[in-house]
């Protein structure tokens, strides 16, 4: 399964890309995160601390146990600072 993965703010800076397409067999966000962290230290630095960032699946905020079998787009970003 191929997914579009988006990164924003300091997550984007640590990873060095705003967007990429990733092949994954992960069934949950947590599984995908573990796959990404295992790639290299840039991903580990950006994504290891699950309390420091949020995730959206197909543009809806979800938790890390959310299932992603039918997902198209997953985004990782810091807690939001709008307003």
């Amino acid at each position: 399964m191929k997914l579009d993965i988006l990164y924003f703010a300091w997550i984007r800076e640590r990873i060095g890309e705003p967007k990429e397409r990733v092949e994954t067999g992960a069934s949950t966000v947590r599984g995908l995160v573990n796959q990404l962290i295992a790639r290299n230290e840039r991903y580990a630095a950006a994504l290891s601390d699950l309390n420091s960032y949020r995730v959206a699946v197909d543009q809806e905020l979800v938790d890390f146990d959310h299932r992603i079998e039918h997902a198209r787009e997953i985004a990782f970003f810091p807690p939001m600072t709008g307003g």
Partner: protein
Amino acid sequence: MLIRIQPEPFEMSSVLDGFGQGAGAIVTFSGLVRDDTGQMVALELEHYPGMTEKAVTGIASRAAARWNLIDLAVIHRHGRLSVGAPIMAVATAARHRAEAFAAAEYLMDYLKSRAPFWKREIGPNGPGAWVAAKSDDEDALARWD
């Protein structure tokens, strides 16, 4: 209901032109770029195109239903904004002021913590720190449960 996510500046007077016909109360709030460090030149707002519009529309729809609003507007800018420039505005129109005030506060609380924007300070030497979300802002959402 008016929702606009845009880089361009806006005039509050044009947002309010014809707004809230038949209402007994209109509340408006404007958020401006504040210099917290004494060295800020601008604020850079990154956002998530697509999700931003969806999230803001969801927040606005819930506010409109909960307080039975007659009209509602949310304008939120992104990109590079100078100190003192308007970042965003909300306007709510209701029959009575209590609903208009409460809906405006609800909108502000949710836009702060649930609309996908990220602020970064720009100083005289270029981009500085990303603004951290405050736990108080997250806690503020609990009062609407």
